[in-house]
């Protein structure tokens, strides 16, 4: 079994911390993992992505082949669409619905929505609004991870929840609890 995930967003949004949480869960579960990141210039508010590959067997390439990704997990809607050529025909798109408009020619909201309607498996969650509503402004990415958990077949919800405890463990119980609550909120919002 394998799961190839493209994580995407805008530099500074925190896609790498999502990768860390999934990676931690995968390592604990004894899975093989490869995770390609982009550092450097593109982190300054540009588009960023990370290829995260999980498998119970060997993984050869650090990069995911076009047409084979099982999931696009994105903190930004246009950035989710950017990687559609990588998605396999049964793949899932799990994305934040809040646009990050730092360019003058950002596409029209309705046009983006229309693009999402053409996809067979898509979950859009307004993680920014949820984070604000529940007074957890820094937890948007964990809410998104919760939303993805339902469709990440290679790891169980419990395994992912436990990894949050380990990743945030050093920051104290209150931070762990808040992040697990964020995770649960995302999970609940992802039912379609």
């Amino acid at each position, binding site marked *: 079994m394998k799961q190839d995930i493209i994580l995407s967003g805008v530099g500074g949004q925190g896609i790498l911390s999502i990768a860390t949480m999934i990676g931690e869960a995968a*390592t604990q579960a004894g899975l093989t993992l490869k995770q390609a990141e982009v550092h450097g210039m593109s982190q*300054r508010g540009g588009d960023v992505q990370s290829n995260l590959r999980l498998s119970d067997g060997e993984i050869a390439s650090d990069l995911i*082949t076009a*047409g084979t990704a099982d999931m696009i997990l994105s903190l930004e809607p246009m*950035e989710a669409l950017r990687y559609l050529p990588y998605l396999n025909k049964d793949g899932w798109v799990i994305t934040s619905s809040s646009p990050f408009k*730092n360019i003058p020619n950002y596409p*029209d909201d309705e*046009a983006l929505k229309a693009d999402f309607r053409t996809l067979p498996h898509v979950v859009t969650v307004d993680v920014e609004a949820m984070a604000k509503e529940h007074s957890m402004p820094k937890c948007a990415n964990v809410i998104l991870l919760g939303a993805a958990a339902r469709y990440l077949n290679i790891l169980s919800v419990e395994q992912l929840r436990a990894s949050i405890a380990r990743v945030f463990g050093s920051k104290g119980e209150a931070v762990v609890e808040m992040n697990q609550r964020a995770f649960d909120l995302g999970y609940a919002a992802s039912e379609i």
Partner: protein
Amino acid sequence: MEKKLLLGDEAIALGAIHAGIRGVYAYPGTPSTEITEYIQRHPLARERGLHSTWCTNEKTAVEAALGVSYAGGRVIACMKHVGLNVAADAFVNSAITGVNGGMIVIVADDPSMHSSQNEQDSRFYGKFSLMPVLEPSTQQEAYDMMEYGFELSEREKLPVLMRIVMRLAHSRAAVEVKETARELQALPCAKDAAGWVLLPANSRRKYAALVEQQPRLEELALHAPYTRYEPSEEEKPVGILACGIGYNYVKEAKEAEGKFNILKVTQYPLPTELVRRLAAESREILVVEDGQPFAEEIISGMLSADYPVKGRLTGDLPRTGELTPDSVATAMGFRPERYFDLPKEVVSRPPALCQGCGHRDVYTALNEVVKEYPNARVFADIGCYTLGALPPFRAIDTCLDMGASITMAKGAADAGVFPAIAVIGDSTFTHSGMTGLLDAVNDKAQITVVISDNLTTAMTGGQDSAGTNKFEAICLGLGVEPEHVRVVVPLPKNMEEITRILREEIEYKGVSVIIPRRECIQTLNRKLKQKKAEKKS
């Protein structure tokens, strides 16, 4: 053995610590920076007092590293591919002096130019300096090759070049690592002056010996631990020569299993014997290598003219850009299927200067003044502030290499351009700008140099900058007149003062330096966060 999840860069760093290095010498550069940063943070490196502070540039790094080797220690020098151009004088000559303690120069190439100005392939440097070159394909190999590389270096008395590419440097995987580190290497200090003083008479003798050593280096590459020949069960199939990370993309094409003869190369000089075997047992050869067509050119010259060799030169793989599993599968005859197109709404999202960044205020002021001079040209440099080329600023006219802002402005001023303005960052100025400023002072060139000082090497993530607190003294020492070294604080509220000073200094008929100084917003926020966390605990 224990398993750790490591970036390729981190695997190299840990491999080096475990192999008993005395230190790392480096200048930050994507994608090589994390090697040194890992060593800076590592508890054993701290306990052992390993050298890991940043060097002023790649040339000083390689020279200092060679000094450690001379003294009998093991050492690494790290840089990005274009950094090797800066270090080239020291690097190439270090193959002539040879080494005492083991020395590995690690160079991270950036095919596709994710964060660079070109996609030069460092293996060419290995070839023309006649040095052994290692090219790992995985994080595990990168870790293991450190101890191997040091043994190779000490046995052959030569520096070793390890070439990696961005995809390995910045990709994470589980690596089996040793639980204990080797003792610090402590060979007796070298003292053979005839071998270390490169007077022509000595150099000729040493160079002849180096040339004579080449067949043995090739023999070593033939038996290198990760280089191997994987024959197909089919009669005369297509053969694949896969270098470094290219091998992973070949193996990713699952349909291809057993259908190709594969020669995996991880060490150079290219093992001719294995290449000839691959050619004899295959009907054609596809060369899969990330970067430039290095092996492809060599084997095309090695085999008979009618033997079909395919790769980047023949267009079977794209001539430019990094390899991908898609391009490699396609070259192997499997076209990956795509199910969804890129929607036409998706537009590019280029990086930009951070909100609140001092460079923004510098460009706002500069743009206001420059529009008063129709013939003004702004010569910029390498760093975050290169982003001043993009909207909304569009403030710079050139960016070539580290340090070229000052020297190009000087040349342009010599040829009559007025005003000729240079914009350079603090770290880039000490890296390669100081010597150019001396040229300008000596010629009394009419240029205005803006050293936009944010107290850090920001583009690569906020490493210490060599010249912090020394810029006024450096400029005065190089001969810039005291009344033409001006310091300002780049903030919107100071716009009137900054533009006035810019105008005054542009009109001055000589070299003037304006230093807008305000800490990088990223490093500042990080420090504030840290302080907050410390208060809490």
